[in-house]
């Protein structure tokens, strides 16, 4: 028996007693930087229905510099101050938003939802003085000394003094809130920091599309010169060579594209626009395509609402920049502010588009195809969302974008898909510029040795050689093998220089990422992607011997390779060749030509899904049809014809289609048809894109038609 007498059961009630330092934690831990803290205060002004908010950074007094944020919003009554402002985590804003309760003056939905943003003020300084006045009320003043407050053991032992007085600040019937912060914390507000703050404050509202009646400005008395020469955003936008705007709603994709004439270049501008297009979605690591679809539909924007976007894209090629003047201003602006921002109801969602944030992975995807892909340092873009309809996009408390949920993944896909549409059009104009500015390139003159050497030196310097060297070695070996093999085969006329140049540029992009040193994980992915580009050519390099083969065998192998995909996507394959119908023999390297045929099938599988996104209601059948058959319709020789009932070749001519890195697929590398063309040429044949009436084929295959023509037997 225990010596302790059994205590009678009892029950006590004890509320949580937060330490006073909890408020400090909220400010310090949740908000990443003093600049973001200012942003939080400006957002509060927006929610207070203000028209104007002024941030005054008074650094003139060396002893006691201060930051003052003043708005002309609705202000707070004493009751509101006590019931809301002094209650961490108060949810009245969130409720207003959920109930679609708009502000009386500007009809805004509140941006705040967690009731924590104001505690960021602690990040700025030690002493806070809040003055606020609501309509028909006295002025209230709250003074907070954070050091004193957080040294109290518990929050309930740290009362805040509120003074209520006749109006002194907001006189003559004015309303609003003023927060003055003194005893500022580091960092010291240097010229650079102030310029960045200025840009941050002015970018709070969309410079692309300002919300009605809301302006934020920064004053730095005594240091006006620090910010007066900041580049004018409008002027920067005017210097973009490409402009792209889009609107996506319920799967309907409207867009306009404009290539602007470059001064001094004899190239006409080119506007293109399309209403009711299909937005092609790239795959995403965060969110797979909705229902495996490759084009957007109403489900894609569920919880996101309609998406409006605009991209201003620049060209940093020296030949183009020279003609635009003041190159340094433009390039340094793009280096610092390039990227794609997100705005909801016209107010910026941080930290999308900030330096160091690559939420769309633009830089990574560029390494594959540097010429075609748009990187962050050549774009100023904005995506506009409606607060009311984007309920599934929830901002993280630390202001580092949206919570990474399915809707966030879909938003990424949408923006990348729209960017892909821009890139498709842009490649035509890039090609026109290239023809004017570059000299004809000899593939033997393209050398990767130097970029590789520089890359290795940098890797050594940073002590990461061991991680990267296998990739560098593989890239180097594959590149050299490819150059040697293809040049030896007399393939110099097939845009080889473009491919070699692209790999060389890819190595340089990787080099820059390593030099930058901020994202070594991204650099490793870039190295892997570059290996991937060269991998695509691996079969070219070890092609088997050319000998006579039955094309029936070729078709059977290709079907085998693609069977899982044909089956899964419910594609009806009509392949008379498999039964020997029209079979012929020809001399070719089987592995090489099989690769070509596989690429044609791969293309067809994608485009069939673009035109026919839906399966039958039971998911068992589809309208997707693919034909692989023999043809004697060509004078040059017997052919294998691959046809489908997809959307067709969209008017693209053969010259474009077989050019390396040309593609209309958002994830495509643009090497499939280039490879197929190369493989046919290496086999003595050719790849052609006949009109449907040139060949004898059933009318049901009304999409793309591609023919692999083999050399006729002598």
């Amino acid at each position, binding site marked *: 028996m225990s010596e302790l007498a059994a205590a009678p059961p009892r029950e006590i009630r004890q509320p949580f007693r937060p330490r006073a330092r909890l408020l400090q934690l909220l400010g310090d831990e949740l908000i990443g930087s003093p600049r973001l803290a200012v942003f939080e205060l400006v957002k509060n002004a927006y929610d207070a229905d203000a028209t104007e908010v002024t941030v005054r950074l008074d650094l003139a007094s060396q002893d006691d510099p201060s930051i003052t944020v003043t708005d002309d919003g609705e202000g707070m009554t004493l009751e509101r101050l006590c019931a809301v402002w002094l209650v961490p985590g108060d949810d009245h804003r969130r409720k207003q938003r959920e109930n679609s309760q708009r502000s009386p003056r500007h009809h805004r939905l509140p941006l705040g939802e967690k009731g924590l943003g104001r505690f960021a003020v602690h990040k700025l300084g030690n002493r806070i003085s809040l003055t606020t006045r609501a309509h028909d009320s006295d002025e209230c003043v709250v003074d907070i000394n954070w050091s004193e407050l957080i040294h109290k053991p518990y929050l309930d032992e740290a009362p805040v003094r509120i003074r209520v007085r006749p109006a002194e600040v907001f006189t003559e019937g004015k309303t609003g809130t003023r927060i003055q912060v003194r005893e500022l914390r580091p960092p010291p507000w240097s010229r650079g920091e102030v310029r960045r703050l200025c840009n941050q404050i002015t970018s709070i509202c969309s410079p692309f599309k300002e919300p009605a009646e809301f302006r934020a400005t920064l004053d730095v008395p005594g240091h006006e010169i620090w910010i007066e020469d900041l580049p004018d955003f409008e002027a920067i936008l005017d210097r973009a060579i490409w402009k792209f705007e889009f609107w996506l709603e319920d799967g309907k994709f409207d867009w306009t594209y404009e290539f602007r004439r470059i001064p001094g270049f004899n190239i006409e501008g080119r506007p293109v626009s399309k209403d009711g297009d299909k937005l092609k979605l790239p795959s995403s690591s965060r969110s797979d395509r909705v229902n495996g679809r490759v084009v957007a539909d109403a489900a894609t924007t569920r919880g996101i609402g309609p998406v409006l976007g605009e991209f201003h894209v620049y060209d940093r090629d020296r030949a183009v920049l020279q003609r635009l003047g003041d190159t340094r201003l433009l390039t340094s602006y793009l280096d610092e502010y390039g990227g794609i921002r997100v705005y909801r109801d016209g107010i910026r969602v941080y930290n999308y588009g900030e330096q160091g944030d690559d939420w769309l992975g633009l830089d990574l995807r560029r390494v594959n195809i540097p010429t075609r892909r748009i990187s962050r340092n050549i774009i100023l873009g904005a995506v506009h969302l409606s607060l009311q309809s984007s309920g599934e996009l929830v901002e993280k408390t630390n202001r580092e974008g949206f919570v990474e949920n399915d809707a966030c993944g879909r938003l990424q896909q949408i923006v990348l898909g729209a960017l892909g549409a821009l890139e498709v059009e842009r490649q035509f104009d890039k090609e026109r510029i290239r023809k004017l500015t570059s000299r004809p390139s000899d593939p033997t003159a393209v050398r990767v040795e130097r970029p590789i050497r520089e890359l290795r030196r940098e890797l050594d310097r940073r002590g990461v050689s061991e991680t990267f060297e296998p990739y560098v070695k593989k890239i180097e*070996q594959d590149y050299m093998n490819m150059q040697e093999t293809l040049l030896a085969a007399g393939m110099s006329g097939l845009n080889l220089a473009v491919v070699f140049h692209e790999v060389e540029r890819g190595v340089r992009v990787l080099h820059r990422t390593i030099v930058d040193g901020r994202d070594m994980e991204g650099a490793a992915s870039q190295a892997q992607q570059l290996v991937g580009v060269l991998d695509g050519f691996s079969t070219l390099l070890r092609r088997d011997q050319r000998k006579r083969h039955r094309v029936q065998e070729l078709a059977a192998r290709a079907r085998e390779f693609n*069977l899982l995909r044909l089956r899964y996507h419910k594609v009806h394959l009509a392949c008379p060749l498999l039964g020997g119908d029209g079979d012929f023999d020809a001399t070719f390297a089987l592995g090489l030509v099989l690769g070509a045929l596989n690429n044609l099938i791969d293309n067809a599988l994608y485009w069939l899904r673009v035109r026919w996104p839906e399966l039958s209601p039971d998911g068992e059948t589809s309208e997707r049809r693919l034909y692989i058959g023999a043809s004697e319709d060509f004078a040059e020789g017997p052919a294998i014809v691959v046809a489908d009932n997809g959307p067709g070749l969209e008017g693209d001519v053969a010259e474009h289609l077989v050019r390396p890195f040309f593609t209309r697929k958002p994830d495509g590398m643009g090497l499939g048809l280039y490879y197929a063309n190369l493989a046919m040429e290496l086999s003595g044949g050719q790849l052609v894109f006949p009109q449907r009436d040139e060949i004898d084929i059933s009318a049901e295959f009304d999409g793309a038609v591609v023919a692999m023509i083999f050399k006729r037997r002598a």
Partner: protein
Amino acid sequence: MAAAAPIIAIDDEPNDLAGLANGLSRYGVPCYKIHFTGLADVQACPEVRVIFADLNLGAGGLASGDFKSNFSSIGRILENIQPRGPYVVFLWTWHAARASELKTFLGERLEGIAKPFDIRSVEKADHLDGTEIRSEQRLVEKIASLTEELGEAGGYDDNYRVVRAALAPLFRDLEGEGNPAARDRLSGGASPEEIMLRLRGLFSAGDGPYEEVPPGYPTEATTLDEWLNVELADTVRTPKQMLESGDEEDLFFLERFVNAVATSRVASHPYVVRDIVRSRIEAMFRNGMSLALIEGPRVRLGGESEEEYDRWMNALNPMFGDITPRQFFDGSKVKVERLRVLASRLDAIDDGAFS
């Protein structure tokens, strides 16, 4: 003979393929090599437990950029291999990050066969220096650690058990249980000529009553033990014919048995019984029989303690009838007569005696 292979490796790069397979073989794990050209179907290997596969198997490669055609190739290869039991795919690749995508792809699209219970990656970048393996030790350690990861992820379930069983020699060696002499006699990565020499050496190295071969055994070998003889009796060709055929599959088959014989002769013999039991348990599992039928030898595939091991070695159990596993041994060597008993018991199990 590929049908019997528990471990296969597929690659379109012959050097990468040889580097991996040789590394495994030198650690006692024979690996059936498939140099994939895309020009013929891969044949069925229903007994396979571990498949090493390159992701980019050529034929158009990555030109499409989204890897789907590569995934499709691998999927079709698996359908042709027709694995009958649980198996794992280890990608042997430059694109390790694609493993989870491949798993999703195969999960949705494979038909008519079991899906790999997991897919993990062995990065070529970590192990290849040009066309050479940098360190075989490091490579097999990676494979062993991936296997252990599978165990952790699946709660050391039966999937893990069969994979670990297939890779058992590798673990033995890594755990310092293997005998270096055994490894020296393995024929991994050897040329046909070397395999022939080693086989001849093995067949002629008789050492006592345990390795009597029945008269009439049609090879030049005179000392191959009976157990091996029984196994080979199922084959159409004699070892000598296999040896001289130069056929890759025949040589692979022989190589496996060379390894088995080398291990059984030189390494410590308790493992022979354990391996036999293990392979039989695996067969039972594959055939849908309950493992609960075997009461005694709850073999934990090398993971048991000395005490546990001794306990079941000295205990009677339905599988071995009236002798304990210990009684199969004479010192460190296996008694052939006892192996016959074991074989008959195992046959009885196959015939459903315990079901």
